[in-house]
C-alpha cells in the first residue's frame, strides 16, 4: 500500500489514497466463483484442498452464486452449448470483477479444435489472466490468483472495467 506517514499527529493518522485502501482490502479477499466444467476443475479441487490451500492467499471463500463473487475462475472446456451460460454468469457478477481462464481449453479451445468447443472464452467474456497447462498444476492456478492481486493493485477502484469489450454473444 502506498502509505506515507506524515508524522502530523504522530502515529495516529495515516494519509493515503482511497484507491490504495480499497485495493488493499480487495486484494486479500477475492471471492472466486468456480465455473468448473471438466478435468481442470478437478485440479482446482486440489488447489482448494489442504495441500495447496488457496486460503493462504485469501481466496478460499468459494461462492457458488455469481452475485457474491468477484473472481470468475473458468476451469475446463467451454462448449458452444455452455457458452451462453458462462456469459449469463459473468453478467450476473457485480463490478468489479476479474476472470481467470484456467487451462488450454478455456484459454484457446485446447486440442479440441472441432465443432463443439469455443475457441477460447475471450470470444465471449474479457479475460485477465490465462493459465497454460492441460490441466495446469495447482501452483499455476495459485500463481494466477497472485497475478490478479498484483493487477488489481494498480487499478482505479471506482472505475468500471472492460467497458469497451464486445464478445460474440453480446448483442450487436
Amino acid at each position, binding site marked *: 500500500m502506498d502509505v506515507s506517514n506524515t508524522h502530523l499527529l504522530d502515529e495516529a493518522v495515516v494519509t493515503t489514497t482511497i484507491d490504495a485502501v480499497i485495493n488493499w482490502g480487495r486484494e486479500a479477499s477475492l471471492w472466486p466463483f468456480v465455473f468448473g*466444467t*471438466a478435468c481442470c476443475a478437478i485440479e482446482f479441487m486440489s488447489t482448494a484442498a489442504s495441500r495447496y490451500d488457496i486460503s493462504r492467499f485469501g481466496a478460499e471463500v468459494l461462492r457458488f452464486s455469481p452475485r457474491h463473487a468477484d473472481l470468475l475462475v473458468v476451469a475446463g472446456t467451454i462448449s458452444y*452449448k*455452455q457458452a*451462453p*451460460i458462462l456469459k449469463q454468469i459473468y453478467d450476473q457478477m457485480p463490478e468489479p470483477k476479474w476472470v481467470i481462464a484456467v487451462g488450454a481449453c478455456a484459454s484457446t479451445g485446447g486440442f479440441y479444435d472441432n465443432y463443439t468447443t469455443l475457441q477460447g472464452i475471450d470470444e465471449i467474456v474479457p479475460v485477465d489472466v490465462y493459465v497454460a497447462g492441460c490441466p495446469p498444476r495447482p501452483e499455476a492456478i495459485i500463481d494466477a490468483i497472485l497475478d490478479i492481486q498484483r493487477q488489481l493493485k494498480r487499478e482505479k477502484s471506482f472505475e468500471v472495467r472492460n467497458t469497451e469489450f464486445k464478445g460474440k454473444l453480446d448483442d450487436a
Partner: protein
Amino acid sequence: MLNTPIILQSSELFQTITHAKNVLGFTLLLDITAIDNLHKKRPASTRFELVYILRHAAFKETLLYKVSVADETLGVESISSLFGSAEWAEREVYDQYGIHFINHPMLKRVLNHMQFVGHPLRKDYTITKGQYCTSSQDLMDEMKPLLKHRNLDLNNDNLMVVNLGPSHPASHGTIRTLAALDGETIVAAAAEIGYLHRGFEKSCENHNYNQIIPYTDRLNYCSAIMNNIAFAKTVEEMMGITLPERGIYIRIIVAELSRVIDHLVCLAAGLLDMGGQTNYWYLYNPRDNAYDFLSKLTGARLTNSYMRIGGMAHDLYEGWEGDLRDVLTKIDFGITESLKMITHNRIFNDRLQNISPVSAKQAIDYGFTGPNLRASGVAYDLRFAKPYYGYETFDFDMVIGSVGDTYDRMMVRFDEMNESMKIIRQAMSRIPDGDINVNDRRITMPAKGCVYGGIEDMMNQFKLVIEGVHVPKGEHYGSFEAANGELGFYIVSDGSGTPYKVKVRPPSFYHMAAYPKIIENYQVADAILTLGSLNIIAGEMDR
C-alpha cells in the same frame, strides 16, 4: 477373438432383437451407434449402417447386430420399448448422424445444442465447423408429457419448476436437471446433457491411433489411465497382439490405482455434498499422494497419457515399490478414518439408506454397469465374467450391494477400493522383469538413442509418427471394467493408421439417462446425493 457384427435386414431388426432379449437372454443393451460409409473405399450398399451391441444375462457373451439403413429420414423401428437404455442411445444416433427412429417417444438432440444445424458425425460435416448457441432450451417439451402422465398440472397442483444445474456446485460438472417440485419432493424430472460434448469421436477420425491416447485421458479424467488402457487394449485385440508379462502387470497396477483414485474422488465429493467435510480431507488428501506417485511415473498428475498401442511410454522408475506402498498405506488410513466417522453415523445412514433404490431388473434395463449395477445386487464385473490380463489369477472379491440405494452405491465403492489395493499388492509381489512393449517395429517406437544414431531407426520412427500404427481392416467392440462400469470402444478400421470410426460406450451416459427417473418421489437434497453416488463424469458422458 474379435466381436464382429451379424448383418440383419432392417425389416427383421425389431423381431430379431426382441428374440435376442426374450429367448436368447441378451438382456443388457450396451450401445447403439451408426457408421457413415460415405468415405469407404469400397462402396457399401447404403450410406448408413446401424450397430447394436448387446450383452448376455450371464455377461460373458456380446452380440453385435448391424443393419443397413435404406433411407435415413425414414429410419428404422425404435427398440426403446424393449430396453430403457435405448432411448438416449437412439437420440444420440439421431443427433450425430441424423437417422430417424420410428416410434421413439422423444426423438431430439441429446449432445449438441438445439440451434445446431446438421449432423456432425456424418463424414461430410467439416470437423472445425462450430456453431454458436445463444440460448438454452426450456425443457418443457419433456416436462409437460411427464406431468400429464402423472395427472398433474403445474398451476392447479401448485408445483414449482426449478433448474438444478448446469452450473451448480453439486451438479458435479455440467449436468442440468429440471425438476418439478411439490414442496421439497420431486414429482417429475428431466435431464439435459451435452454441455461438455467435446467431439471425441470426430477427433478420433482425424488422428492416428497413438494420438488418440491423450483424448481418451479426458473421457473419465478422474481415472485417466484406465481409459488409455481400455482404448489400447481394444486396438491391440484388433491387431492380435499381446503385451509382455511385465507390461500387463504395470497396466494392472496403474489401472487398479486409478480405480481407487476415482472412487476416492467420488466418495469425497459425495460426502462433502452431505456436509461431511472432514471426510473430504481424509479421502482427498491421499489422492494427492497417489498423484505424486503418478506424476513421478508419467510426468503428469491428472492426464497421464501413459499408455501406447502395444505397451506404454516407459518402464517403472527405480524405487517405485516404496513410493507405491507408502501411497497405499495413506489411502488405507484415509478410508479407515472416514469409515470410522460414517459407519455408525445416524445422519449418514438416514440420509442414504432407502434413497432412490434401483432394482436389479431396472438397473439392467437402464444399462447400468460397474459399481452402480453391483450395488443393485447383480454380480457383474468384467474382471470376473470375462477375465483379461490374467485377473482370474488374483485373489480378490466382487463387492455387491443388496437394494441398490444411494447407500449401497457408496459403500460398494468403499469396499472396492480395498479389493483393488489387494490386487495391487499381489501384482507388486509378482511383477516379473522383462520387456514392457511388444517387440514389433511396426508398432513400438525404436529407442531414442537409436533414432539419433541410425537412418533405419529414424525412418522407422518417422513412419510411426506420421502414419501411425496400422490396424488391420475390420471392426471390433472391446470392453474393459473401468471405475464407473463397462467402458467399451467400438472401432472400425479401414486398414490405415487412422480409425474410420470410434465409438465409446461410456458407462456414465446410461447412468445419467436413468437419473431423472430414480430421483422421482425423493427430495431435492436426496437427488444431490444420488447424483454423487452415481458418479457421473461429464467428460465421459458427453465425450
